[in-house]
Protein backbone atom coordinates (compact mmCIF):
# COMPACT_ATOMS: atom_id res chain seq x y z
CA UNK A 1 0.00 0.00 0.00
CA UNK A 2 1.75 3.12 -1.14
CA UNK A 3 1.45 6.37 0.71
CA UNK A 4 0.28 8.07 -2.47
CA UNK A 5 -2.91 5.97 -2.38
CA UNK A 6 -3.70 7.53 0.99
CA UNK A 7 -2.62 11.04 0.16
CA UNK A 8 -4.12 11.39 -3.30
CA UNK A 9 -3.34 14.66 -4.99
CA UNK A 10 -6.94 15.86 -4.68
CA UNK A 11 -6.68 15.41 -0.91
CA UNK A 12 -3.44 17.37 -0.62
CA UNK A 13 -4.97 20.16 -2.70
CA UNK A 14 -8.18 20.36 -0.66
CA UNK A 15 -6.10 20.31 2.56
CA UNK A 16 -4.44 23.50 1.37
CA UNK A 17 -7.40 25.24 -0.25
CA UNK A 18 -9.95 24.42 2.47
CA UNK A 19 -13.17 25.27 0.64
CA UNK A 20 -15.90 26.60 2.92
CA UNK A 21 -13.57 27.34 5.81
CA UNK A 22 -14.40 30.38 7.95
CA UNK A 23 -17.62 31.71 9.45
CA UNK A 24 -17.70 35.07 7.70
CA UNK A 25 -21.01 35.02 5.80
CA UNK A 26 -24.40 35.94 7.24
CA UNK A 27 -26.85 33.08 7.85
CA UNK A 28 -29.24 32.29 5.00
CA UNK A 29 -32.51 34.19 5.57
CA UNK A 30 -35.45 32.07 6.68
CA UNK A 31 -33.27 29.00 7.11
CA UNK A 32 -32.95 26.52 9.94
CA UNK A 33 -29.51 26.70 11.52
CA UNK A 34 -27.44 23.99 13.09
CA UNK A 35 -23.94 23.91 14.54
CA UNK A 36 -21.85 21.01 15.77
CA UNK A 37 -18.38 20.84 17.25
CA UNK A 38 -16.46 17.57 17.09
CA UNK A 39 -13.18 16.70 18.76
CA UNK A 40 -10.86 13.76 18.21
CA UNK A 41 -9.37 13.22 21.67
CA UNK A 42 -6.59 11.04 20.28
CA UNK A 43 -4.93 13.86 18.38
CA UNK A 44 -6.75 17.01 19.53
CA UNK A 45 -8.15 17.75 16.08
CA UNK A 46 -11.30 19.87 16.16
CA UNK A 47 -13.91 20.84 13.61
CA UNK A 48 -17.00 23.02 13.97
CA UNK A 49 -19.58 22.87 11.18
CA UNK A 50 -22.51 25.26 10.64
CA UNK A 51 -25.35 24.25 8.36
CA UNK A 52 -28.29 26.28 7.05
CA UNK A 53 -31.26 24.31 5.72
CA UNK A 54 -34.19 25.81 3.79
CA UNK A 55 -36.83 24.17 1.62
CA UNK A 56 -35.44 20.71 2.27
CA UNK A 57 -31.95 21.52 1.02
CA UNK A 58 -28.61 22.56 2.46
CA UNK A 59 -28.18 26.24 1.56
CA UNK A 60 -24.88 26.75 3.31
CA UNK A 61 -22.25 24.56 4.97
CA UNK A 62 -19.29 26.39 6.52
CA UNK A 63 -16.64 25.06 8.86
CA UNK A 64 -13.68 25.99 11.01
CA UNK A 65 -11.10 23.73 12.53
CA UNK A 66 -7.59 22.49 12.73
CA UNK A 67 -6.16 19.08 12.14
CA UNK A 68 -4.29 16.78 9.80
CA UNK A 69 -4.48 16.96 6.00
CA UNK A 70 -7.05 14.16 5.87
CA UNK A 71 -9.46 15.89 8.27
CA UNK A 72 -9.06 19.31 6.65
CA UNK A 73 -9.41 17.96 3.11
CA UNK A 74 -12.52 15.96 4.00
CA UNK A 75 -14.15 19.09 5.46
CA UNK A 76 -13.31 21.00 2.29
CA UNK A 77 -14.73 18.29 0.03
CA UNK A 78 -17.81 18.07 2.24
CA UNK A 79 -18.49 21.75 1.74
CA UNK A 80 -18.38 21.36 -2.04
CA UNK A 81 -20.67 18.32 -2.05
CA UNK A 82 -23.20 19.37 0.57
CA UNK A 83 -24.09 22.87 -0.49
CA UNK A 84 -27.18 22.71 -2.69
CA UNK A 85 -27.92 19.07 -1.94
CA UNK A 86 -31.31 18.08 -0.58
CA UNK A 87 -31.10 16.90 3.01
CA UNK A 88 -32.14 13.46 1.79
CA UNK A 89 -29.33 13.29 -0.79
CA UNK A 90 -26.90 14.64 1.77
CA UNK A 91 -27.81 11.93 4.28
CA UNK A 92 -27.41 9.27 1.58
CA UNK A 93 -24.01 10.73 0.67
CA UNK A 94 -22.83 10.57 4.28
CA UNK A 95 -23.91 6.93 4.47
CA UNK A 96 -22.02 5.96 1.32
CA UNK A 97 -18.91 7.82 2.53
CA UNK A 98 -19.08 6.18 5.96
CA UNK A 99 -19.56 2.69 4.51
CA UNK A 100 -16.55 3.17 2.22
CA UNK A 101 -14.33 4.39 5.08
CA UNK A 102 -15.32 1.53 7.37
CA UNK A 103 -14.76 -1.13 4.72
CA UNK A 104 -11.01 -1.63 5.33
CA UNK A 105 -10.39 -1.33 1.63
CA UNK A 106 -13.26 -3.58 0.49
CA UNK A 107 -15.37 -0.78 -1.03
CA UNK A 108 -13.77 1.52 -3.55
CA UNK A 109 -14.92 5.08 -4.00
CA UNK A 110 -17.28 5.77 -6.90
CA UNK A 111 -16.57 9.26 -8.25
CA UNK A 112 -20.04 9.28 -9.86
CA UNK A 113 -21.60 9.14 -6.41
CA UNK A 114 -18.95 10.66 -4.19
CA UNK A 115 -17.18 13.17 -6.42
CA UNK A 116 -13.90 14.29 -4.86
CA UNK A 117 -14.81 12.34 -1.71
CA UNK A 118 -14.01 9.14 -3.65
CA UNK A 119 -10.36 10.07 -3.21
CA UNK A 120 -10.65 9.08 0.44
CA UNK A 121 -10.99 5.40 -0.47
CA UNK A 122 -7.34 4.84 0.49
CA UNK A 123 -8.06 6.03 4.03
CA UNK A 124 -10.18 2.95 4.69
CA UNK A 125 -7.03 0.82 4.70
CA UNK A 126 -5.54 2.98 7.47
CA UNK A 127 -7.93 2.27 10.32
CA UNK A 128 -6.28 4.85 12.58
CA UNK A 129 -7.13 7.59 10.07
CA UNK A 130 -10.82 6.83 9.44
CA UNK A 131 -11.84 9.19 12.25
CA UNK A 132 -9.81 11.96 10.62
CA UNK A 133 -11.81 11.62 7.41
CA UNK A 134 -15.15 11.38 9.26
CA UNK A 135 -14.85 14.19 11.80
CA UNK A 136 -16.32 17.02 9.67
CA UNK A 137 -18.98 14.69 8.25
CA UNK A 138 -20.13 13.63 11.70
CA UNK A 139 -20.35 17.31 12.67
CA UNK A 140 -22.30 18.11 9.48
CA UNK A 141 -24.73 15.25 10.06
CA UNK A 142 -25.40 16.53 13.57
CA UNK A 143 -25.70 20.17 12.45
CA UNK A 144 -28.08 19.26 9.60
CA UNK A 145 -30.27 17.32 12.03
CA UNK A 146 -30.49 20.40 14.27
CA UNK A 147 -31.17 22.68 11.31
CA UNK A 148 -34.14 20.54 10.29
CA UNK A 149 -35.15 20.32 13.97
Amino acid at each position, binding site marked *: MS*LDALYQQVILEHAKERHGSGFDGAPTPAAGHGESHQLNPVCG*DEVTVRVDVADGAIRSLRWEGH*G*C*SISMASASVLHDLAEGATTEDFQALVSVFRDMLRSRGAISGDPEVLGDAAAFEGVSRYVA*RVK*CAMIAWVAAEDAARQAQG
Partner: protein
Amino acid sequence: MALVSIPAGLRTVQEARLDDSEAERIRRDFPALDQEVNGHPLVYLDSGATSQKPRSVLEAEQDFYESRNAAVHRGAHELAVRATDAYEDARAKVAAFVGAETEELVWTSNATEAINLVAYALSNASAWAERGRGGAELARFALGAGDEIVVTELEHHANLIPWQELAFRTGAALRYIPVDDAGRLDLAEAARIIGPRTRILAFSHASNVLGTVSPVGDLVELAHRAGALVVLDACQSVPHMPVDVKALGVDFAAFSGHKMLAPTGIGALYGRAELLDALPPFLVGGSMITKVTMERAEYLPAPQRFEAGTQRISQAVALAAAVDYLSETGMARIAAREAELGARLAEGVAAIDGVRLLGPAPGEQWYGHARFGLAAFDVDGVHAHDVGQYLDSRGIAVRVGHHCAQPLHRRLGLTASTRASAYLYTTEADVDALVATLAEVRGYFGVTAKVGA
Protein backbone atom coordinates in the same frame (compact mmCIF):
# COMPACT_ATOMS: atom_id res chain seq x y z
CA MET B 1 14.55 -21.84 35.94
CA ALA B 2 15.22 -22.36 32.27
CA LEU B 3 16.61 -19.13 30.94
CA VAL B 4 18.16 -19.59 27.57
CA SER B 5 18.99 -16.11 26.40
CA ILE B 6 21.92 -14.36 27.97
CA PRO B 7 21.36 -10.61 28.08
CA ALA B 8 23.85 -8.73 25.94
CA GLY B 9 24.99 -6.86 29.02
CA LEU B 10 26.53 -10.04 30.45
CA ARG B 11 28.70 -10.45 27.40
CA THR B 12 30.32 -7.04 27.59
CA VAL B 13 32.69 -5.16 29.80
CA GLN B 14 30.61 -2.93 32.07
CA GLU B 15 33.10 -0.10 32.11
CA ALA B 16 33.26 0.33 28.35
CA ARG B 17 31.10 2.95 26.70
CA LEU B 18 27.81 1.66 25.28
CA ASP B 19 28.52 2.28 21.62
CA ASP B 20 26.83 1.48 18.34
CA SER B 21 28.37 -1.97 18.05
CA GLU B 22 27.06 -2.94 21.48
CA ALA B 23 23.63 -1.50 20.61
CA GLU B 24 23.67 -3.77 17.55
CA ARG B 25 24.37 -6.77 19.82
CA ILE B 26 21.65 -5.65 22.26
CA ARG B 27 19.14 -5.45 19.40
CA ARG B 28 19.51 -9.18 18.78
CA ASP B 29 17.94 -9.81 22.20
CA PHE B 30 14.75 -8.03 21.07
CA PRO B 31 12.73 -10.16 18.64
CA ALA B 32 10.27 -7.36 17.82
CA LEU B 33 13.03 -5.15 16.46
CA ASP B 34 13.97 -7.70 13.83
CA GLN B 35 11.17 -7.21 11.32
CA GLU B 36 10.11 -5.24 8.30
CA VAL B 37 7.29 -2.71 8.43
CA ASN B 38 5.73 -1.42 5.22
CA GLY B 39 8.59 -2.94 3.26
CA HIS B 40 11.35 -1.30 5.31
CA PRO B 41 13.40 -2.54 8.27
CA LEU B 42 11.64 -1.35 11.43
CA VAL B 43 13.16 1.77 12.96
CA TYR B 44 11.57 1.86 16.41
CA LEU B 45 11.73 5.34 17.89
CA ASP B 46 8.74 5.15 20.21
CA SER B 47 10.31 3.76 23.38
CA GLY B 48 9.04 6.78 25.31
CA ALA B 49 5.55 5.35 24.76
CA THR B 50 6.54 1.75 25.41
CA SER B 51 9.77 -0.20 25.13
CA GLN B 52 10.33 -3.43 23.26
CA LYS B 53 11.09 -6.55 25.34
CA PRO B 54 14.20 -8.73 25.39
CA ARG B 55 13.92 -12.52 25.22
CA SER B 56 15.09 -12.86 28.83
CA VAL B 57 11.99 -10.94 29.98
CA LEU B 58 9.61 -12.90 27.76
CA GLU B 59 11.16 -16.14 28.98
CA ALA B 60 10.99 -15.12 32.63
CA GLU B 61 7.25 -14.59 32.31
CA GLN B 62 6.76 -17.87 30.46
CA ASP B 63 9.00 -19.70 32.92
CA PHE B 64 6.91 -18.41 35.80
CA TYR B 65 3.76 -19.86 34.28
CA GLU B 66 5.45 -23.13 33.37
CA SER B 67 7.09 -23.79 36.71
CA ARG B 68 5.73 -21.67 39.54
CA ASN B 69 2.27 -20.38 38.75
CA ALA B 70 0.06 -19.99 41.81
CA ALA B 71 -1.65 -17.23 43.75
CA VAL B 72 0.69 -15.48 46.17
CA HIS B 73 0.36 -14.90 49.91
CA ARG B 74 -2.31 -17.57 50.23
CA GLY B 75 -2.28 -21.34 50.13
CA ALA B 76 0.42 -23.54 51.65
CA HIS B 77 1.24 -25.78 48.72
CA GLU B 78 4.65 -25.87 47.11
CA LEU B 79 3.76 -23.86 44.01
CA ALA B 80 2.19 -21.14 46.15
CA VAL B 81 5.44 -20.88 48.10
CA ARG B 82 7.51 -20.71 44.92
CA ALA B 83 5.18 -18.09 43.43
CA THR B 84 5.25 -15.98 46.58
CA ASP B 85 9.06 -16.18 46.70
CA ALA B 86 9.33 -15.13 43.07
CA TYR B 87 6.90 -12.27 43.62
CA GLU B 88 8.64 -10.97 46.73
CA ASP B 89 12.14 -11.49 45.28
CA ALA B 90 11.00 -9.34 42.37
CA ARG B 91 9.89 -6.65 44.78
CA ALA B 92 13.27 -6.68 46.53
CA LYS B 93 15.09 -6.44 43.22
CA VAL B 94 13.03 -3.61 41.78
CA ALA B 95 13.09 -1.71 45.08
CA ALA B 96 16.88 -1.96 45.23
CA PHE B 97 17.07 -0.81 41.60
CA VAL B 98 15.60 2.56 42.60
CA GLY B 99 17.32 2.74 46.00
CA ALA B 100 14.25 1.87 48.09
CA GLU B 101 13.73 -0.60 50.93
CA THR B 102 11.80 -3.69 49.87
CA GLU B 103 8.66 -2.86 51.85
CA GLU B 104 8.62 0.65 50.39
CA LEU B 105 7.70 -0.63 46.93
CA VAL B 106 4.03 -1.22 46.13
CA TRP B 107 3.07 -3.04 42.94
CA THR B 108 0.49 -1.30 40.80
CA SER B 109 -0.78 -1.85 37.27
CA ASN B 110 1.13 1.12 35.94
CA ALA B 111 2.36 4.55 36.98
CA THR B 112 -1.08 6.07 36.48
CA GLU B 113 -2.51 3.72 39.07
CA ALA B 114 0.44 4.45 41.38
CA ILE B 115 -0.28 8.20 41.31
CA ASN B 116 -4.00 7.61 41.74
CA LEU B 117 -3.17 5.38 44.70
CA VAL B 118 -1.41 8.26 46.44
CA ALA B 119 -4.20 10.70 45.59
CA TYR B 120 -6.94 8.37 46.80
CA ALA B 121 -5.04 7.36 49.94
CA LEU B 122 -4.75 11.06 50.75
CA SER B 123 -8.44 11.74 50.17
CA ASN B 124 -9.34 8.66 52.19
CA ALA B 125 -7.14 10.09 54.95
CA SER B 126 -9.20 13.28 54.73
CA ALA B 127 -12.46 11.31 54.96
CA TRP B 128 -11.20 9.15 57.83
CA ALA B 129 -9.92 12.18 59.77
CA GLU B 130 -13.25 13.93 59.29
CA ARG B 131 -15.04 10.97 60.87
CA GLY B 132 -12.51 10.57 63.68
CA ARG B 133 -11.00 7.37 62.31
CA GLY B 134 -7.24 6.77 62.43
CA GLY B 135 -6.45 9.33 65.11
CA ALA B 136 -4.06 12.25 65.05
CA GLU B 137 -1.57 10.20 63.04
CA LEU B 138 -3.89 10.42 60.08
CA ALA B 139 -5.11 13.99 60.53
CA ARG B 140 -1.77 15.29 59.25
CA PHE B 141 -2.64 13.98 55.76
CA ALA B 142 -6.11 15.53 55.68
CA LEU B 143 -6.66 18.08 52.93
CA GLY B 144 -9.31 20.76 52.79
CA ALA B 145 -10.14 24.33 51.86
CA GLY B 146 -7.09 26.56 52.21
CA ASP B 147 -4.68 23.76 51.33
CA GLU B 148 -2.86 23.73 48.00
CA ILE B 149 -1.63 21.01 45.68
CA VAL B 150 1.09 22.16 43.28
CA VAL B 151 1.99 20.59 39.92
CA THR B 152 3.82 21.95 36.86
CA GLU B 153 2.48 23.06 33.50
CA LEU B 154 4.41 20.33 31.67
CA GLU B 155 2.88 17.33 33.41
CA HIS B 156 1.67 14.21 31.67
CA HIS B 157 -2.09 13.89 32.23
CA ALA B 158 -1.37 10.99 34.61
CA ASN B 159 0.33 13.42 36.99
CA LEU B 160 -2.22 16.19 36.54
CA ILE B 161 -5.75 14.77 36.52
CA PRO B 162 -5.43 12.72 39.76
CA TRP B 163 -4.53 16.00 41.51
CA GLN B 164 -7.35 17.94 39.85
CA GLU B 165 -9.75 15.32 41.16
CA LEU B 166 -8.14 15.19 44.61
CA ALA B 167 -8.55 18.98 44.83
CA PHE B 168 -12.19 18.62 43.80
CA ARG B 169 -12.88 15.90 46.38
CA THR B 170 -11.24 17.71 49.27
CA GLY B 171 -11.78 21.41 48.53
CA ALA B 172 -8.05 22.05 48.23
CA ALA B 173 -6.80 24.36 45.45
CA LEU B 174 -4.67 23.15 42.54
CA ARG B 175 -1.87 25.49 41.44
CA TYR B 176 0.86 25.03 38.90
CA ILE B 177 4.41 26.13 38.25
CA PRO B 178 4.32 27.74 34.79
CA VAL B 179 6.77 27.21 31.95
CA ASP B 180 8.10 29.90 29.62
CA ASP B 181 7.58 30.07 25.86
CA ALA B 182 10.28 27.44 25.35
CA GLY B 183 8.92 25.11 28.03
CA ARG B 184 11.42 25.91 30.78
CA LEU B 185 10.08 25.79 34.35
CA ASP B 186 9.82 29.20 36.00
CA LEU B 187 11.72 28.41 39.20
CA ALA B 188 11.36 31.95 40.56
CA GLU B 189 7.61 31.51 40.30
CA ALA B 190 7.93 28.06 41.90
CA ALA B 191 9.55 29.69 44.92
CA ARG B 192 6.59 32.08 45.17
CA ILE B 193 3.91 29.42 44.68
CA ILE B 194 5.29 26.78 47.03
CA GLY B 195 4.61 28.01 50.55
CA PRO B 196 2.90 27.27 53.84
CA ARG B 197 -0.38 26.32 52.13
CA THR B 198 1.34 23.74 49.92
CA ARG B 199 0.60 20.19 51.02
CA ILE B 200 1.67 18.26 47.96
CA LEU B 201 4.12 19.00 45.15
CA ALA B 202 3.83 16.60 42.20
CA PHE B 203 6.12 16.86 39.18
CA SER B 204 7.80 14.75 36.55
CA HIS B 205 11.45 13.78 36.88
CA ALA B 206 11.99 13.78 33.11
CA SER B 207 9.67 15.39 30.57
CA ASN B 208 8.06 13.09 28.02
CA VAL B 209 7.82 15.99 25.56
CA LEU B 210 10.84 18.22 26.13
CA GLY B 211 13.49 15.58 26.89
CA THR B 212 14.56 17.55 29.96
CA VAL B 213 15.48 16.37 33.44
CA SER B 214 13.79 18.47 36.12
CA PRO B 215 15.72 20.29 38.89
CA VAL B 216 14.57 17.76 41.48
CA GLY B 217 16.85 19.02 44.25
CA ASP B 218 15.61 22.62 44.03
CA LEU B 219 11.95 21.61 43.94
CA VAL B 220 12.24 19.05 46.75
CA GLU B 221 13.94 21.65 48.92
CA LEU B 222 11.18 24.20 48.29
CA ALA B 223 8.50 21.62 49.07
CA HIS B 224 10.08 20.18 52.18
CA ARG B 225 10.85 23.63 53.57
CA ALA B 226 7.10 24.27 53.23
CA GLY B 227 6.28 20.93 54.88
CA ALA B 228 4.76 19.50 51.68
CA LEU B 229 4.96 15.94 50.42
CA VAL B 230 6.74 15.38 47.10
CA VAL B 231 5.34 12.97 44.50
CA LEU B 232 7.70 12.27 41.61
CA ASP B 233 6.50 10.97 38.25
CA ALA B 234 9.55 8.91 37.37
CA CYS B 235 8.14 7.22 34.24
CA GLN B 236 10.69 8.74 31.88
CA SER B 237 13.63 8.63 34.30
CA VAL B 238 13.73 5.18 35.91
CA PRO B 239 13.98 3.39 32.52
CA HIS B 240 16.67 5.71 31.20
CA MET B 241 19.01 6.86 33.98
CA PRO B 242 20.21 5.77 37.41
CA VAL B 243 17.57 6.81 39.95
CA ASP B 244 17.96 6.70 43.73
CA VAL B 245 14.73 7.80 45.37
CA LYS B 246 16.43 8.25 48.75
CA ALA B 247 19.16 10.45 47.31
CA LEU B 248 16.51 12.50 45.50
CA GLY B 249 14.67 12.89 48.80
CA VAL B 250 11.19 12.47 47.34
CA ASP B 251 8.32 11.05 49.41
CA PHE B 252 6.66 9.09 46.62
CA ALA B 253 7.76 8.06 43.13
CA ALA B 254 5.83 6.27 40.40
CA PHE B 255 7.08 4.35 37.38
CA SER B 256 5.83 1.85 34.80
CA GLY B 257 7.31 -1.51 33.87
CA HIS B 258 6.38 -1.44 30.20
CA LYS B 259 8.64 1.56 29.52
CA MET B 260 11.64 -0.34 30.97
CA LEU B 261 11.64 -3.61 29.01
CA ALA B 262 8.91 -5.29 31.10
CA PRO B 263 5.38 -6.30 30.06
CA THR B 264 2.36 -4.05 30.35
CA GLY B 265 0.22 -4.36 33.45
CA ILE B 266 2.93 -3.79 36.04
CA GLY B 267 4.14 -0.58 37.63
CA ALA B 268 5.34 0.48 41.02
CA LEU B 269 4.93 3.10 43.67
CA TYR B 270 7.78 3.98 45.99
CA GLY B 271 6.67 5.57 49.25
CA ARG B 272 8.64 6.33 52.37
CA ALA B 273 7.87 3.49 54.83
CA GLU B 274 6.59 5.84 57.47
CA LEU B 275 4.08 7.36 55.03
CA LEU B 276 2.89 4.11 53.48
CA ASP B 277 2.29 2.56 56.88
CA ALA B 278 0.27 5.56 58.04
CA LEU B 279 -1.92 6.08 54.97
CA PRO B 280 -5.27 4.34 54.54
CA PRO B 281 -5.67 1.93 51.64
CA PHE B 282 -6.96 2.86 48.18
CA LEU B 283 -8.35 -0.41 46.79
CA VAL B 284 -9.74 -2.78 49.41
CA GLY B 285 -10.63 -6.47 49.37
CA GLY B 286 -8.75 -9.74 49.61
CA SER B 287 -5.11 -10.21 50.58
CA MET B 288 -4.67 -6.86 52.33
CA ILE B 289 -6.46 -7.47 55.64
CA THR B 290 -5.71 -8.84 59.10
CA LYS B 291 -9.21 -9.26 60.55
CA VAL B 292 -12.60 -8.93 58.91
CA THR B 293 -16.03 -8.90 60.55
CA MET B 294 -19.38 -8.18 58.96
CA GLU B 295 -19.00 -4.57 60.05
CA ARG B 296 -15.39 -3.66 59.33
CA ALA B 297 -11.85 -4.69 58.53
CA GLU B 298 -8.34 -4.07 59.73
CA TYR B 299 -5.50 -3.78 57.29
CA LEU B 300 -2.02 -5.19 56.86
CA PRO B 301 0.98 -2.85 56.85
CA ALA B 302 2.44 -1.65 53.56
CA PRO B 303 3.09 -2.83 50.95
CA GLN B 304 0.33 -5.52 51.24
CA ARG B 305 -2.13 -2.89 52.44
CA PHE B 306 -2.08 -1.44 48.94
CA GLU B 307 -2.22 -4.71 47.01
CA ALA B 308 -5.83 -5.86 47.12
CA GLY B 309 -6.92 -8.88 45.14
CA THR B 310 -4.91 -11.34 43.08
CA GLN B 311 -1.77 -9.62 42.02
CA ARG B 312 0.19 -9.12 38.79
CA ILE B 313 2.59 -11.91 39.61
CA SER B 314 4.08 -12.96 36.28
CA GLN B 315 4.42 -9.29 35.33
CA ALA B 316 6.30 -8.50 38.54
CA VAL B 317 8.62 -11.44 37.91
CA ALA B 318 9.17 -10.24 34.35
CA LEU B 319 9.87 -6.70 35.58
CA ALA B 320 12.59 -8.13 37.82
CA ALA B 321 14.09 -9.83 34.75
CA ALA B 322 13.95 -6.48 32.96
CA VAL B 323 15.76 -4.84 35.86
CA ASP B 324 18.42 -7.57 35.59
CA TYR B 325 18.84 -6.76 31.93
CA LEU B 326 19.16 -3.04 32.62
CA SER B 327 21.48 -3.49 35.61
CA GLU B 328 23.75 -5.82 33.68
CA THR B 329 23.95 -3.32 30.85
CA GLY B 330 24.50 -0.54 33.38
CA MET B 331 22.16 2.39 33.92
CA ALA B 332 24.94 4.97 33.87
CA ARG B 333 26.09 3.61 30.50
CA ILE B 334 22.53 3.64 29.19
CA ALA B 335 22.07 7.25 30.34
CA ALA B 336 25.34 8.34 28.70
CA ARG B 337 24.40 6.55 25.49
CA GLU B 338 20.94 8.12 25.44
CA ALA B 339 22.37 11.58 26.00
CA GLU B 340 24.51 11.03 22.87
CA LEU B 341 21.50 9.82 20.90
CA GLY B 342 19.43 12.73 22.23
CA ALA B 343 22.07 15.19 21.07
CA ARG B 344 22.22 13.51 17.66
CA LEU B 345 18.42 13.60 17.37
CA ALA B 346 18.22 17.24 18.45
CA GLU B 347 20.97 18.35 16.06
CA GLY B 348 19.53 16.45 13.13
CA VAL B 349 15.94 17.57 13.69
CA ALA B 350 16.78 21.22 14.40
CA ALA B 351 18.85 21.47 11.22
CA ILE B 352 15.87 20.70 8.95
CA ASP B 353 14.24 23.72 7.36
CA GLY B 354 10.76 24.38 8.75
CA VAL B 355 11.09 22.00 11.70
CA ARG B 356 10.87 23.38 15.23
CA LEU B 357 12.55 21.33 17.93
CA LEU B 358 10.73 21.51 21.27
CA GLY B 359 12.71 21.90 24.48
CA PRO B 360 16.42 22.64 24.77
CA ALA B 361 18.29 23.68 21.60
CA PRO B 362 21.03 21.31 20.41
CA GLY B 363 23.88 21.34 22.90
CA GLU B 364 21.88 23.36 25.42
CA GLN B 365 21.52 22.16 28.99
CA TRP B 366 18.51 23.00 31.15
CA TYR B 367 18.82 22.83 34.93
CA GLY B 368 22.36 21.47 34.44
CA HIS B 369 21.26 18.38 32.51
CA ALA B 370 21.70 17.41 28.87
CA ARG B 371 18.64 16.29 26.88
CA PHE B 372 18.00 12.58 27.30
CA GLY B 373 17.24 10.37 24.29
CA LEU B 374 13.99 12.02 23.24
CA ALA B 375 13.08 14.83 20.85
CA ALA B 376 9.63 16.18 20.00
CA PHE B 377 9.17 18.62 17.15
CA ASP B 378 6.67 20.51 15.03
CA VAL B 379 6.84 20.44 11.25
CA ASP B 380 5.62 23.76 9.87
CA GLY B 381 2.61 23.28 7.61
CA VAL B 382 2.30 19.53 8.17
CA HIS B 383 0.16 18.05 10.95
CA ALA B 384 1.88 15.57 13.27
CA HIS B 385 -0.38 12.73 12.12
CA ASP B 386 0.68 13.29 8.54
CA VAL B 387 4.34 13.41 9.61
CA GLY B 388 3.88 10.13 11.48
CA GLN B 389 2.12 8.54 8.53
CA TYR B 390 4.95 9.48 6.18
CA LEU B 391 7.58 8.13 8.58
CA ASP B 392 5.55 4.94 9.09
CA SER B 393 5.46 4.36 5.34
CA ARG B 394 9.27 4.16 5.59
CA GLY B 395 9.14 1.78 8.56
CA ILE B 396 9.88 4.48 11.15
CA ALA B 397 7.69 4.31 14.28
CA VAL B 398 7.29 7.56 16.23
CA ARG B 399 4.63 9.02 18.51
CA VAL B 400 2.26 11.68 17.19
CA GLY B 401 -0.30 13.77 19.04
CA HIS B 402 -0.18 15.59 22.35
CA HIS B 403 1.64 12.78 24.17
CA CYS B 404 -0.86 13.07 27.04
CA ALA B 405 0.36 16.61 27.72
CA GLN B 406 -2.32 18.87 26.26
CA PRO B 407 -1.65 21.86 28.55
CA LEU B 408 2.04 21.92 27.66
CA HIS B 409 1.30 21.71 23.94
CA ARG B 410 -1.23 24.53 24.26
CA ARG B 411 1.39 26.60 26.09
CA LEU B 412 3.85 25.96 23.26
CA GLY B 413 1.23 27.08 20.73
CA LEU B 414 0.57 23.59 19.38
CA THR B 415 -2.16 20.97 19.47
CA ALA B 416 0.14 18.12 18.52
CA SER B 417 3.75 17.27 17.85
CA THR B 418 5.84 14.36 16.61
CA ARG B 419 8.17 12.63 19.04
CA ALA B 420 11.13 10.32 18.49
CA SER B 421 12.48 8.53 21.54
CA ALA B 422 15.46 6.21 21.91
CA TYR B 423 16.49 3.40 24.21
CA LEU B 424 19.47 1.13 24.79
CA TYR B 425 18.78 -0.75 21.54
CA THR B 426 18.59 2.38 19.37
CA THR B 427 21.41 2.83 16.88
CA GLU B 428 22.85 5.94 15.30
CA ALA B 429 21.51 4.59 12.02
CA ASP B 430 17.99 4.67 13.49
CA VAL B 431 18.40 8.34 14.35
CA ASP B 432 19.93 9.13 10.96
CA ALA B 433 17.08 7.34 9.15
CA LEU B 434 14.56 9.46 11.02
CA VAL B 435 16.38 12.69 10.25
CA ALA B 436 16.84 11.88 6.56
CA THR B 437 13.19 10.86 6.13
CA LEU B 438 11.90 13.80 8.13
CA ALA B 439 13.74 16.10 5.73
CA GLU B 440 11.47 14.80 2.90
CA VAL B 441 8.17 15.39 4.69
CA ARG B 442 7.48 19.04 3.87
CA GLY B 443 8.27 18.40 0.24
CA TYR B 444 5.90 15.46 0.06
CA PHE B 445 3.02 17.48 1.49
CA GLY B 446 3.71 20.34 -0.88
CA VAL B 447 4.83 22.81 1.77
CA THR B 448 8.10 23.20 -0.13
CA ALA B 449 9.08 22.15 -3.65
CA LYS B 450 8.13 18.48 -4.03
CA VAL B 451 10.99 16.01 -3.66
CA GLY B 452 11.12 12.26 -3.99
CA ALA B 453 7.44 11.21 -4.09
